[in-house]
């Protein structure tokens, strides 16, 4: 096994990049689905209909109260058991192992949705009432009011929180390694174990995460400038 000790960063560059790409894919998908869940959750939280409000409150409260690592493990096993049961019920034999990618996206999106619900709810509540009243007075449909007025009016309030959630999400993808799915962190662990160059690989991992978050912070800053295009700059003083 002499070859093993001669393995270095370069030999692992391919798998690590692949892992990084997978991490990004998981994060982007989970974020997008989480955003939709958050919009639905926030609308439900603000709905005049009490049962809907209750449901959304239960979702955001429960999910935010349980450690994400635990949720990932729980949902992974609960999910595969439920699917196996379903397949047996349909009269088919066999065991189901859920696809790791789908689990990762599903679980992280579910968790994101809960936090996003709260961020968006606050941002919607902060919209000056007159802007919504004007939409009502002109006879906007519920949907037109929502996507033409509510969403663009709340985005300036929501983006800082949304950007924060994105950063947390990128880092949370590392939790997925517990179910043995080879995203960035899992790959790094393998590389470190196999080469024994622990510091080198973990430092490389840190650098990659840093690169991802810095890039996205810059993107969010641009996005924020865009959604605030109608607001005079506040940086005089």
């Amino acid at each position, binding site marked *: 096994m002499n070859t093993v000790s001669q393995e270095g960063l370069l030999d692992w560059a391919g798998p690590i990049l692949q892992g990084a790409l997978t991490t990004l894919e998981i994060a982007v998908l989970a974020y997008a689905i989480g955003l939709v869940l958050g919009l639905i959750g926030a609308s439900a939280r603000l709905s005049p209909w009490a049962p809907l409000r209750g449901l959304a409150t239960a979702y955001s409260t429960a999910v935010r109260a349980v450690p994400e690592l635990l949720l990932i493990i729980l949902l992974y096993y609960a999910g595969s058991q439920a699917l196996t049961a379903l397949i047996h019920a349909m009269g088919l034999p066999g065991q189901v192992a859920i696809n790791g990618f789908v689990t990762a996206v599903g679980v992280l999106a579910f968790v994101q949705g809960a936090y996003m619900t709260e961020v968006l709810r606050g941002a919607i509540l902060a919209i000056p009432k007159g802007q919504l009243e*004007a939409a*009502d007075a*002109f*006879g906007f449909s519920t949907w*037109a009011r929502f996507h033409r007025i509510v969403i663009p009016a709340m985005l300036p309030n929501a983006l800082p929180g949304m950007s924060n959630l994105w950063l947390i999400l990128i880092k949370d993808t590392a939790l997925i390694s517990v179910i043995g799915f080879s995203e960035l962190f899992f790959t790094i662990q393998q590389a470190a174990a196999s080469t024994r160059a622990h510091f080198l690989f973990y430092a490389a991992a840190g650098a990659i995460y840093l690169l991802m978050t810095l890039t996205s912070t810059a993107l969010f800053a641009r996005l924020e400038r865009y959604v605030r295009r*109608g607001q005079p700059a506040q940086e005089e003083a």
Partner: protein
Amino acid sequence: MTSSLHATPSASSTLAVEARHLVKRYGDLEVLRDVSLEVPEGSVTSIIGASGSGKSTLLRCLNLLERPNLGELAIADEAIRFDRNPQGDVVGLDRRQLQRLRAKVSMVFQQFNLWPHFTVLGNVTEAPMRVKGLSRRRANALAEHYLERVGMADKRDSYPAYLSGGQQQRVAIARALAMEPRLLLFDEPTSALDPERVSEVLSVIRGLADEGRTMVLVTHEMAFARDVSDQVVFLDRGVVGVAGTPQDVFEDSEHERCRHFVAPAVC
């Protein structure tokens, strides 16, 4: 339609607004107590009265931003009767009818309420496109026309936050006009403006009155109300104290509180 400036509304002219026995409560507070109001097509009605007398509430009942508890409303060919079902809920309005009515009645707010994420042009084209389904081209043409009308065409690409209050209010008026409404509502359109900006907005409103548009405005500008209105309604603690021509209300009224209220404007 002939514009009958300063003419007494004749019984034969059709009514843009017919409100009968409106009652509006907030909890135990009865803000409107049996208010009736008729606004003939093509006429200007001003609602005046002390703070808290229910002027805004009455105006907002006319586009159903507030829903009356009791009474009947006929506005722009939509007739609605408010009542209670046996469970005690207010009934008498379905969503479709509400949207139809609101597409025919435009409102100008005290605080302008422009949408800050749209340009001036975007603010004016939004409702015609989303509510009336106009194409962008037609909506743009309409918007250009009405922005020209209020003297704001050169600011079409600005965002509202970069305009003065008077300019924002003129854009808000263009936004209301672009819906080509049957009825225009103004709730204290100049109260949030710097004094030197008031006249630019009033002169736009005066121009609309001269065109024979049907308007109801709540205002504290007594001289303006007197000058521009066909009908003046003095609202007093939730009831119509006096209603009639400007002459009736500003000069000939026997109503004690009305005389007192308009006195500063009369002398």
